[in-house]
């Protein structure tokens, strides 16, 4: 299947990427090229094959439930676009 302009707009919204009308058109064409290329995967019979999520079979490590992180708020907020009183500032979300 190939994507139309509405599909591209929907995907861009899901990805939180603003696209202009012109960008939507080039994006549609390029995404369709790429999807056409990966389409060949559909022809492979993978019945009974276990999906491989990771390169090495490992199980999630557990650690003792103790505090390991120290306070880095000042360090981390020093690189934020906008902070005040130790808080990150964003546009009003609740009227």
């Amino acid at each position: 299947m190939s994507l139309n302009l509405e599909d591209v707009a929907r995907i861009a919204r899901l990805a939180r990427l603003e696209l202009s009308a012109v960008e939507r058109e080039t994006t549609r064409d390029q995404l369709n090229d790429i999807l056409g290329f990966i389409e060949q995967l559909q022809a492979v019979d993978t019945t009974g094959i276990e999906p491989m999520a990771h390169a090495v079979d490992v199980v999630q490590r557990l650690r003792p439930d103790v505090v390991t992180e120290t306070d880095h708020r000042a360090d981390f907020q020093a690189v934020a676009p906008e902070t005040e009183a130790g808080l990150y500032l964003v546009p009003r979300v609740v009227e």
Partner: protein
Amino acid sequence: MSDLINSSLRDLSAALAARKLSAVELATLFLDRIEKLNPALNAFITTDRDKTLAQARAADATLKSGDGATALTGMPVAHKDIFCTRGWRTTCGSKILANFISPYDANVVEKLDGAGMVTLGKLNMDEFAMGSSNETSYFGPVKNPWDVSCVPGGSSGGSAAAISARLAPAATGTDTGGSIRQPAALCGLTGLKPTYGVVSRYGMIAFASSLDQGGPMAKSAEDCALLLNAMAGFDARDSTSLERPQEDYRRDLEKPLAGLKIGLPREFFGAGMDADVRVAVDAALAEYRKLGAVTVDVSLPNSGLSVPAYYVIAPAEASSNLSRFDGVRYGYRAPEYADLAEMYSRSRAQGFGDEVKRRILIGTYVLSHGYYDAYYLQAQKIRRLIAGDFVAAFKECDVIMGPTSPSVAFAFGAKSADPVQMYLADIYTISTNLAGLPGMSLPCGFGNNNMPVGLQIIGNWFGEAKMLNVAHRYQKATDWHTRMPGGLE
């Protein structure tokens, strides 16, 4: 001076230990070269002479007291700008992080700093490591020192160009689909991608987490072994870091190759490879036979599916990883927006370049409701088939060899208009990442326009020491790895 810039890490280390040279003198030599040659090559995004010299002075003090000195104390290194370095700008080649000063060090940086290495600066790269030519960097493309009209490869193109032009004796790189090996091939140096999980990903800005792996880039296999000794090791802060005993990757360097079985996948020697690359790779295989190795035919029947499978898995993981760039906690924020949703979508639209956006969109699509099974799950099943091919092949051989890249370095613009053509530049390297195997590239001659050709060695899982042995013995018998581009001065 030309002696020093061409010296191995071992020789430089010996010169420092014998007090023939100080770490400050060595760092200054490379900083001066960077100042002179980088404007033409664009390999470095950030340098900071004061920071570098402070580290060099500390290394000199360590060498003088002898307390805590290692084989790498005072050795200059440059970091791909994907590795967070405390107090240094860490951009990942992107506008969205153009002013990001990292508040912490990546594990790899911590380890190399701890070993006494001296940071020369931060190296240019494809934006978020997405690219095979370095043309996607927000900071402009890196030039190939062998011919500045050609790409250096990517995404660790800055690392490759810096070593090739002798602006640094060693560098860090990362490899998600070939990003250490392909630029190493195109710039004529040696690079190693370890088995997934050997080097910690902590502080290495994530692209595709199930594939990303950091590794060393240098002039020779011996130097890579020395670097890997310091880079590898368990790190609890990376949930996929492997708990394994520490290895000495130099332990087998000198082992003779008599009886070594080299597997040649027939799929790697087909029509896709340019004739000039084939000549150089065949000559390297002839040299290996002279060294006592035997070659056997093997097959990786599903390797043709590796590029399409990769372009489902990697963008899917990237779309998830890159959702953290929201203009709230760090990075670029758009100057104008009406509400929170617009702040996100505009900051991301203005902060990311075209290739990164394309991959985020592809990834978002293949993970979206109704398509997950058809794309992502199917790609993961094919990933298992690809890994299974290697399991079968390694029953017949000790290492696998082939070309690293189907062609020598190509001209700027040659593939940048067609994403799929660019993706195929990694056709021989991607299957290794999908399987989690270690791989190397080493120089094995020159092809068209006198551009370097890389020989790829793929090792079995945790076969780094074997690969390094195989590469080192070849480098003792040949001198391709000692060649440097002319006409730079």
